């Protein structure tokens, strides 16, 4: 009898304890460990708020963030965050003001629990992004390789450049246009002035303009971007001046057409059909209009030399043009055409960079194979 009474007591206590524990676990709790810190490595335009994750059975369905400015009233900002979120970056701060935050946990029974208020934080911008140190060092090494090779090339030592058929055809194309008494059409593509392919294209144009200045061949350049137009006019004018032929330079031959992609293609196609240039250069960044222009140039029998780093447009140029500069050949073109020690040294420096990548891949693959992954970790950190 005593034993059965004791057993009942034990069972009752156990049931009471379990029920209590369950009830306690379901009780709404406020978010804990809420911190607000200035976001590192930014321009001082955000504050990052973090808090501890609620347990899966807590009943939290989301979080809302409340913010005040300079110790004023708290107001909700942004949308409700998912229950699994524990970090929020507030990008709507008012620069120069201090902000404090409260995280409100929203429960499935429509109740809410508010965290304690964080310390007030003022966002500050950083001059240096510490996460990009490896990238910076890589840039320094790469720049040093280029500078060393430029120095080497300028000291009079010969720098070998392998044959690039597309660039050997430049002379042929200009000569053909001169003999036929027709113009040369130079298309820079759709890139803006800060696009690497456009910059490369403009430097090639500078070299082409030197030849056309010598031969007095009309050079027509329809531009899509007004800033590119201004740069191109300066470059071509300088080329004509360098060749001692400022009188042959005609500013009206370098003109703004339109900045809309297919209107530009329609305008260029019309020019090709009506002016029938003997040589067409398509150098720069291109998109879907590439085949429209290359095919029209092909139909009028012009010699076409294309070059782009847009990998999706290269197949069309290879199919429709006489010569195509593939990717980096476009960047190598200036060195190849001008034989200037500055560009030749730069080209050789780039090759050194490729040797490093080459070695890095073989070394990295070998290390990964043996389970050592510090190269991928380093690259991931940089990325």
């Amino acid at each position: 009898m005593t034993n059965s009474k004791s057993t009942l007591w034990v069972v009752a206590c156990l049931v009471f304890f379990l029920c209590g524990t369950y009830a306690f676990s379901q009780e709404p709790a406020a978010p804990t460990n809420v911190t607000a810190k200035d976001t590192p490595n930014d321009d001082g335009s955000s504050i990052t708020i973090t808090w501890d994750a609620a347990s899966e059975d807590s009943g939290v369905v989301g979080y809302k963030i409340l913010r005040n400015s300079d110790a004023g009233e708290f107001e909700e900002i942004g949308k409700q965050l998912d229950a699994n979120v524990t970090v929020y970056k507030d990008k709507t701060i008012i620069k120069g003001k201090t902000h404090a935050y409260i995280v409100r946990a929203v429960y499935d029974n429509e109740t809410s629990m508010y965290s304690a208020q964080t310390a007030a934080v003022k966002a500050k911008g950083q001059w240096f992004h510490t996460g990009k140190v490896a990238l910076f060092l890589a840039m320094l090494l790469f720049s040093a390789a280029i500078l060393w090779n430029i120095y080497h090339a300028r000291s009079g030592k010969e720098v070998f450049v392998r044959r690039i058929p597309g660039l050997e055809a430049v002379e042929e194309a200009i000569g053909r246009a001169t003999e036929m008494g027709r113009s040369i059409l130079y298309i820079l593509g759709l890139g803006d002035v800060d696009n690497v392919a456009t910059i490369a294209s403009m430097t090639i144009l500078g070299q082409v303009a030197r030849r056309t200045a010598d031969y007095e061949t009309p050079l027509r350049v329809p531009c899509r971007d007004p800033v590119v137009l201004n740069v191109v006019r300066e470059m071509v004018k300088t080329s004509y001046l360098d060749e001692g032929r400022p009188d042959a330079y005609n500013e009206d031959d370098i003109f703004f057409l339109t900045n809309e992609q297919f209107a530009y293609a329609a305008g260029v196609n019309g020019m090709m059909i009506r002016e029938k240039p003997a040589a067409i250069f398509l150098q720069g960044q291109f998109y879907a209009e590439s085949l429209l222009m290359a095919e029209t140039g092909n139909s009028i029998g012009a010699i076409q030399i294309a070059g782009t780093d847009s990998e999706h447009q290269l197949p069309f140029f290879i199919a429709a043009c006489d010569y195509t500069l593939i990717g980096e050949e476009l960047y190598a073109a200036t060195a190849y055409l001008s034989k200037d020690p500055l560009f030749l040294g730069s080209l050789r420096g780039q090759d050194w960079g490729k040797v490093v990548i080459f070695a890095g891949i073989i070394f990295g693959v070998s290390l990964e194979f043996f389970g050592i992954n510090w190269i991928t970790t380093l690259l991931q950190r940089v990325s």
Partner: protein
Amino acid sequence: MELFGIWVAAFLTLCIYSFLYRDNPFYRFAEHLFVGISVGYGIVIAIHQGVIPLAWEPLSEAVSALWTEITGETTPEIRSALWGLFKIIPIAFGLLFFARLSPRHNWLVRYPIAILIGFGAGIAIPNMLQANIFEQTRATIEPFGAIGPFVDVPPEARLSALDIFGAILMVIGVICTLTYFFFSVEHRGPINWLSKVGIAFLMIGFGAAFGNTVMGRLALMIHRVGFLINEWIGSFGALF
């Protein structure tokens, strides 16, 4: 009105398609209309999305804040708006582009050009280095972390035979293609052999991209022909 729009769109579509036959007055009309409208539209967009929000509004706010500051009724918000006055510097550099219109002062245009190209190259080069070199090198190496016999990889993370073949092929392709782009070395012997394999890889890639893009373009043409058949020819009933 909708019917009118359909007929205008169909007429212009046919004008542009007439170029497939030869250059003709209809194509020229559509071409000039397209170029003219796009330039006008571009100017309006540049004014509404560039000049007004980035130059006019901040500057006018800063000027009115300056006036308030002078008259003595200042607040921290007004003081912070005064920073907008610094926008005069980039605006002034931008205005130098108009120096092109004066033969005596057109040399001034070199300053904004130098700034633009300097900024452009400065922003583009690290991004290209990161996206085109670091990221791609990592992606080429990383799969081998799940292949090696000395690596303790959970069964679900193990690569299939096809994935392993793909990873090895990727390394061979990257090394051979990279060899093709060595410019300061003569392509003879093993370098020539590797670069030829690299060109083969490039051409296979271009072939795949060509087929993929042609399919996309055909889809665009089908959409346009669909418009002519369904909407334009379909609208004949409403007219006649």
